[in-house]
């Protein structure tokens, strides 16, 4: 039972962190151009 006191908050925090990262990625425009991102990887030049 005492293990739960640690593992549950840890699991919750990890979940919240994932949610936070998702919202951050959304806000910083990383979902704006999904098709472009998949094609740009084929571009050999590293400088954007």
């Amino acid at each position: 039972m005492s293990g739960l006191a640690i593992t549950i908050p840890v699991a919750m925090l990890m979940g919240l962190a994932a949610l936070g990262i998702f919202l951050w990625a959304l806000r910083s425009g990383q979902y704006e151009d999904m098709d472009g991102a998949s094609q740009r990887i084929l571009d050999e030049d590293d400088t954007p």
Partner: protein
Amino acid sequence: MTCCVPSDFAVVENDPAAIENDGAALGALSRRLGDGTAQLEFAVPDAHCAACIRTIETSLAALPMVRTARVNLTRRRVRIVYDPTQGSPATFAPTIKAAGYHTYVLDPSQESDGDPVLAELIRALGVAGFAAGNIMLFSVSVWSGANDATRDLFHWISALIALPAIAYAGRIFFRSAWRALRVGKTNMDVPISIGVILATALSLFETINSGHHAYFDGATMLLFFLLIGRTLDHLMRERARNTISGLARLQPRGGTLVRPDGTREYVKLREIEPGMTLEIKAGERLPVDSVLLSPGSSFDYSIITGESLPHTIDVGQPVVAGAASLAGPVQVRAERAATDSFLARMAAMMEAAEGAKTRPRRIADRAASLYAPVVHTIAIGTFLGWGLISGDWHAALTNAVAVLIITCPCALALAVPIVHVVAAGRLFERGILMKDGAALERIAEIDSVAFDKTGTLTSGTPRLVRSSLPDDASAAIAAALAASSTHPLSRAIAHGLDQAPRVLDEATEIAGKGIEAQIDGATWRLGSARWCGVTDPTDGSVWLSRDGRPVGSFAFEDSLRPGAAGAVATLTARGLPVRLLSGDAAGPVLAAAWEAGISEAHHSLAPEDKLADVARGRTLMVGDGINDAPALRAAHASMAPSTAADIGRSAADFVLTGDDLGAVPFAIHTARSAARIVVENLGIAIGYNAIALPLAISGQVTPLIAAIAMSASSVIVVLNAMRLRLMTRRPRATAPGVAALKERTA
């Protein structure tokens, strides 16, 4: 359309009057970024691979004023940040065109920065997904045997996560349901909201009383699945709307006003009043019905009447709004206000056609209107039945809530939008933009297809098919004369002769006659037979003459679009009769019909005639002109090429961005496959309810069973929709990988 191979058309097409080449207008469209730079967006509908991105970005970045240029492949547009002090933005469009891509500027004022509805949906989706995932962890522990204090603790933690998440993510449904209820209506969101709220309330009650079953996982998972359907539906609609509204901004909406003192000012369309003097540049379209003030000139009426050859208008004669000046610049006097012009009359006719037509209700709406009363009756029946028979009102309430949860329309809500999203994606890949799912349902039901001729079945631009010139020297002169004019036939000659353009010092264009110039001491003319000294024209419609003596002639043809004959053959083979409706004269209409293999052709039709024709039966109308707009609206389903008039594009359900008419049978095939899958999906959703509902009524459904049944039905529906991609796959000569490789290395 081949990727990464510049089409010669794109480079040749350079209309001096287009807004893309007007530095001042582009400056006004730019968005100031504060640090002295400005931002402009251009649509690049043809870009679709890594090489396209690279070509466009590097060619733009090479310009001195461009700070950054970034292509967004999803929205098919390029965003350019530039320094207005370093140069004019008028070079952007020519640069993109020189790189081999069609382009046009986008108006940022008509564009909201980002999409607030989508942002809200995705945030809600994220929150619901997070809550459902985490609650499920606790639920699994409860199902696998946690009891007493542990179970209570897990239920409490679940409640802590679920309550804010449901309040946040459920808002979208609660709001919509409340809006419907307030006006005494019901929609799909009403049962969803009731189900979610009741399930949450019951679970909370159970948690407080240390009960065995809590439905927090079911409630959040339900919201999660429903939000996926909602988001996909929204995404698809937005994507089509964005691209179409982008297309609609091709034409500057206004005209250049010439004041009595000679100063010029750009006025908006609705500010134009009768009596104003307007200047129309070459290639520009008349904003309102007017009277010509300049000496005789020729106008392109193709978008209005469908006739490809220009009309010659004398001074004092009326010109209809939408006609493009070919010789320009010319001055005209506005005769009517915009609200009263030819365009406005067409728009009124479209509205009338819209009102007269009974649109069949969408499948999803029909399902929803049946769904809510049935589900609520069953839930209340379960509650009363259990309560009255067993007397255990707590169990009765639990079972009634189980009914609401199990019947909550996850699969039903996903069944239709997921298919439409897959279909829209498939159509988008072939260059077909779809306005909404209703259009897809309608186009699957058509029983005949009607094509317009000019600009739809044909490319709308005349092509040089024969020239009878004695030598290369005269060909060079003809090409030089032709290059100095914007007349469609001149363009065809310049393009068709393929001679290095020779620059002429002075060439005069005489409306309705032709072009004249002094070259090497002789008077050369390129124009009508009579003007070139031909008394008995037997061949060709344009002649070349030297000092009044005819030298040679040219013959033209309005060529069919690529794939036109193939499309007609495919449609006929599928049992869809094809007919041709045109405002053009009998000769060219019958010729085009014969070439395309269409057996039924109607010529010299007024817009009213076309409207009456397509209103019979379930017709798919494919047209582009202003005169087609009412017919496009009246037809059961409609398509317009992206070269169509604004009004035509906005009237049509589908817009074809490519040149190939093979897209028409493809769209019908995709729509029919989609309709079949929608029916299958609804069948799966109903079948699932048929199995799960008796279990719920009899009180056998625990939260575990509810969770499994709900996700299984949703996943099956999604997987079934994915089959559409397989059903509409094109048979290829080479393996797809090889073709893609070839495209990239080309």
